[in-house]
Structures are given as structure tokens and as C-alpha cells.
């Protein structure tokens, strides 16, 4: 019994050391790591909150002027919007410039699949072929209106020559035939370009709203708001 009593103290020391080495020290280290992790998370949450505040501020800036906002969305829209291109070009040529339109085609080919047509990662262009006949003054008027269209477009090529073969009722001797390719830009929204670390979300992030005044200065021709007629027919082949 005495021997057992004598052994208790050294055994307890050994037990204490064992507990210290095998459990307390690792626990302590783990606690320190958890504390660091918690501090990191607190920092991340704080940063996220700051970014949320910044986003709210920027969104208010965007929505503060609806006309400016809509101008940007019109200038570079989502998707090709073929119907908008055809309707607007047709209106500008036929109604506004008194021209005969014999070709307005937006290719069905998906330009998005052709990397050579990508302007950058976020936008691409669709090429539109056009063909019109009319006087020099009217062609000039049409091209001037296209150049100031509120949707971005660019003249890739243009050919004007004295009219030869196209038969139209109101053909005059000074008629010219103009054909060419216009490229219209559109925005690609595939969601893969989101960057959480984008400087826009930082405290000093800016939208660059100055560009809007540049767009406004250089564009004035409205895009047509296409109205669709009544649909539904018992015989789709009948006119």
C-alpha cells in the first residue's frame, strides 16, 4: 500500500505530461488555428459587406438616370436582336430615306462560335448584309442615319455603283446601287466572367459614366420599337 502511495505522485506527473503532450498542446495549436480562421472569416465577411454597400451605391448611380441606363443597354444589347436590326434598317432606308431595299440579311450562323469575330470576351458582332437602290443624296442620308444609330454598328464594307440590273417601278436614271456589310455588336452574358475581386467593388471602384455622354453625342437615331401584329392562323400557308 505504501508503495502504491509513493508511486501516485510520479504517476500523476507522468499522466499530466502525457495529457499535456498528447491532448492539450494539439488542442491549443488547433484553437490558435481556429482563431486565425475565424479572424480571416470575419475579415472576409467585413469585405463582403463593404462590397455589398458599394454595389448598392453603384446600382443607385445606374438607376438614378433611366435614360442614360437605357442608352447603354440599347447601344450594346443582350443578344443579336435580328428583328430589331431588320426593322430599323428597313425603316431608315424605306421610310426615312426613300430607298428601295432589296437585301437585309442577318446570317443564321452563330457568330459566337467563331472566335475571330470576338471583339473581346464580353461582346461579339453579327454581320448584316444590306442592299439598297436610290439616289446619291438618299443613300448618303441613310448611311448618315445608320452612323448615328443608338445601337452600335460599324461599316465593314460598302460598295456604291451606278444601278444596272435591278428593276424597280420608280427607277430613275441617276439611281445608285449600294451594298455592304454592317457589323452590330451585342453583349455576351454567359455568367462566366464574374470576378469577385474586380476593382469595381473596391472602395474606389468607378463605373465610367463619362462614356454615356460620348455615346449621347455620337448617336441620335432611335432604334425602332417593333410592334408585332396579331398571330394565329388556321392555314399558315395562306396569306
Amino acid at each position: 500500500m505504501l508503495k502504491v502511495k509513493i508511486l501516485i505522485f510520479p504517476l500523476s506527473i507522468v499522466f499530466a505530461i502525457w495529457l499535456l503532450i498528447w491532448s492539450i498542446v494539439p488542442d491549443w495549436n488547433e484553437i490558435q488555428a481556429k482563431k486565425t480562421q475565424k479572424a480571416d472569416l470575419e475579415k472576409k465577411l467585413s469585405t463582403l459587406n463593404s462590397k455589398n454597400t458599394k454595389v448598392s451605391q453603384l446600382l443607385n448611380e445606374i438607376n438614378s438616370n433611366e435614360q442614360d441606363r437605357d442608352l447603354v443597354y440599347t447601344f450594346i444589347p443582350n443578344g443579336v436582336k435580328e428583328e430589331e436590326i431588320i426593322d430599323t434598317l428597313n425603316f431608315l432606308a424605306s421610310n426615312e430615306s426613300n430607298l428601295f431595299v432589296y437585301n437585309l440579311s442577318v446570317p443564321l450562323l452563330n457568330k459566337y462560335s467563331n472566335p475571330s469575330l470576338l471583339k473581346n470576351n464580353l461582346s461579339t458582332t453579327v454581320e448584316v448584309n444590306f442592299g439598297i437602290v436610290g439616289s446619291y443624296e438618299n443613300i448618303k442620308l441613310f448611311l448618315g442615319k445608320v452612323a448615328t444609330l443608338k445601337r452600335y454598328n460599324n461599316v465593314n464594307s460598302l460598295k456604291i455603283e451606278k444601278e444596272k440590273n435591278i428593276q424597280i417601278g420608280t427607277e430613275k436614271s441617276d439611281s445608285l446601287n449600294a451594298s455592304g456589310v454592317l457589323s452590330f455588336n451585342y453583349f455576351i452574358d454567359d455568367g462566366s466572367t464574374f470576378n469577385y475581386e474586380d476593382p469595381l467593388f473596391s472602395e474606389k471602384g468607378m463605373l465610367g459614366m463619362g462614356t454615356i455622354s460620348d455615346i449621347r453625342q455620337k448617336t441620335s437615331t432611335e432604334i425602332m420599337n417593333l410592334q408585332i401584329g396579331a398571330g394565329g392562323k388556321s392555314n399558315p400557308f395562306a396569306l
Partner: protein
Amino acid sequence: MANINLTTTEKTEVSETAISGGIVLAVILIVLILIVYGTLYFWKKDLTDKTKAMQTQYNTDLESFKKGDSKIVLDFRNRLDIAKSLIVERNIPVLTFSELENRIIAGVSINSYSYDSTKNQIVVTCVADSFKIVAEQIANFKKDSVYFGGITTGETKYNQNKKIEIPIGVEIK
């Protein structure tokens, strides 16, 4: 003969007291260690729970941030960035029309006009009655201009109306 004291009573009492003290110390030490261990255990558990909750909250908030208004804002800024570069590099050949009108001299008319953005050049096929007028026309194109740069000329030919045709290439500045 020297006396030897073989009595051990006193020494045994001292040793038992020391042993008892040792046991007390050992118990105190073990209790202390267990308290430390227990404290650390609950502290770690508390930290783990809090960290896990924060991580979940962060993940949720980040996901809603990515799918929320930030996307609209970033999208808008990207459109503005694209617009900024596009509006500068826009080709507007119609601007060259008035310059062309000023450059064409009497006795010359344009038979065809073509513009190619990749070459940034227009080619006009001019028609004239004589080579003298053709030469004057070329010279007139070479005058200093805001829009027009280098001039190149192609092969002349008589057309079916017995007039001289010459293609003139004009670089757009």
C-alpha cells in the same frame, strides 16, 4: 561497543506525511490539468461551431452577392468599357462623302465607290473624257485633306462609252 539506534518510528511518520502531501499535490495537478483540458475542449468546440456558422454565412452571402445586384453593376460597367473602345474605332465612311464631293473636279464622275474597313481605304473608279482631266483629278486628290491620306492609282481603260476609267485608291486617315 558503540550504540546503534534501530528505532524507525519518527522517520516513518515523516515519510507518510510527505507521501500524503505528494498525493494531494498530484490530485491538485491532475484536477488542474483536467480543468485546462476541459476548458480547451469547450473553447475549441465553441470556436469550431462559430467558425462553421461563419463559413456557412459567408458562403451564402457570397453566393447571393454573385447572383444579385453585383452582376447587374459589373455587367453595366463592362458594357461601358466596351462602348468606350468601340465608339472610338467606329468606321463612318459617310464622313468621306462630303470630302469626295469637294475633290471631284468638273468633267469627272464616279462610276463606282468601294470601302473596305480592313484596308481603311476607299477606291473610286473615276470616268473622264481625257487623260489631262484624269491627271488633274489625281492631283486634286493629293491636296492636303483632313480625311484623305495616301493616293494610289490603277490601270486606266476606255469603257464602252469611249470614256477613260481609272481606279483611284484613297487611304482614310
